[in-house]
């Protein structure tokens, strides 16, 4: 389940699909660099959802091999656009209770503007390209599939 992306971005940028809670501090530590003054982070969190019945959890699944390869392409493109940026990301799979983090993206760069932009880029790309799906589990136990482009339903 863990993909050793770090081999391709030695010592710096790594990405993993994980089944356990995401350790943000560890991702931040991985991108830290004495020449980098700005670190931007995004965390997507499972939210209760105001729309209809309260959500107890989201069950995430992936087309794992392809997701690995898409994450890898996103990181390649990010480093092409922001050379020298350090990027770490993790997406959690399985059942994630409300309030816990499903995805974290951490980017450090010498100056802050690039960190914000690169972090946002990674998040937008992953939502559009990485084959991951979510099924909401409502408090009553009912389930429903949700897409990022369902009108008004994008959880983050």
């Amino acid at each position: 389940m863990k993909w050793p992306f770090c081999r391709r971005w030695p010592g710096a940028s790594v990405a993993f699909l994980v089944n356990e809670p995401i350790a943000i501090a560890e991702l931040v530590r991985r991108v830290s660099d004495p020449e980098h003054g700005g670190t931007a982070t995004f965390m997507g969190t499972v939210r209760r959802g105001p729309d209809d019945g309260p959500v107890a959890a989201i069950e995430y699944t992936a087309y794992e091999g392809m997701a690995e390869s898409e994450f890898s392409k996103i990181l390649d493109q990010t480093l092409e656009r922001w050379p020298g940026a350090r990027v770490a990301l993790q997406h959690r799979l399985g059942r994630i209770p409300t309030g816990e983090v499903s995805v974290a993206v951490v980017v450090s760069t010498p100056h802050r503007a690039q960190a914000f932009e690169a972090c946002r880029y990674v998040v937008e790309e992953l939502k559009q390209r990485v084959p991951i799906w979510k099924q909401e589990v409502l408090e009553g136990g009912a389930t429903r599939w949700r897409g990022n482009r369902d009108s008004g339903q994008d959880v983050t």
Partner: protein
Amino acid sequence: MDPSTDTTISIRCSFFARYAELVGCDHVTLDVPAGATVGTAVALLRGVVPNGDQLPDRPMVAVNQEHALADTKLRDGDEMALLPPLAGG
């Protein structure tokens, strides 16, 4: 050698998430005419799998784990995955 091997190719079709639930399995093998495109294969697939008519006409598709278009040409042994609307993040 045998000309019949030129007339059809065999692809593996994978289903994920809601689509897997809909058709009741995670993959099938499908024979399609040699030179068929993703679009052709999807049309054939919708005719043969259970609830295939409830799959979209033009779903998001990956061939061999790369995003593909309706006019992407298929080759024997390809894996064509039908991807429900993405929901990562």
